[in-house]
């Protein structure tokens, strides 16, 4: 799982069956300093996250297991909205 910031939302009406109604959001992965880490990606969300939220997401095949229908071609899903994240004594929720 990785830390990320939700930076946008994406709408697709033509989707693989089983994904209807699952929100899609654009993520910027973050490192331990709260700085951007790598390319942005699109993820399904299993929680009520939204733009601006600090979240964590799971990648790979496990991402599909967090969707309502689990046999779906999904490789990233938001698993939680972060309330507190500490790296050393630094509070990552304060940054960015």
């Amino acid at each position, binding site marked *: 799982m990785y830390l990320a910031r939700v*930076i*946008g*939302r*994406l*709408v*697709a*009406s*033509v*989707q*693989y069956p089983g*994904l209807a109604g699952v929100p*899609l959001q*654009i993520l*910027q992965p973050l490192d331990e300093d709260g700085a951007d880490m790598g*390319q*942005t*990606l*699109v*993820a399904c969300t299993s929680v009520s996250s939204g*733009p*601006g939220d600090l979240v964590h997401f799971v990648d*790979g*095949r496990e*991402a*599909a297991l967090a969707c309502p229908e689990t*046999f*779906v*071609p*999904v*490789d*990233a899903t938001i698993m939680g909205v972060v309330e507190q994240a500490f790296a050393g004594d630094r509070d990552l929720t304060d940054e960015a």
Partner: protein
Amino acid sequence: MLIGKVVGSVVATRKDEALTSHKLLLVQVHDQLGAARDQYVVAVDSVGAGHEDMILYATGSSARQTSLTKDKPCDAVIMAVIDSWDLGGENVYEKWNEG
């Protein structure tokens, strides 16, 4: 998943039997601003994407989680055709305003 644009198709007569009759599309990866990256993938189409469509594709073992690609040698599958997306509330891409 990553954002991409269908820029072409790939035909291979001699290929693994498991891939027979699958539509293989050439996808150019795009970033969140809609700018093309110098990066291409060949993906199996599971949703009926067309030429120049902006699409989402899934990679890795997730790509085999469709009825079309289950247990097939496939590591990228187009699983959605994008209508629109926004960044911080500003629409970046709207299908209905393209071309």
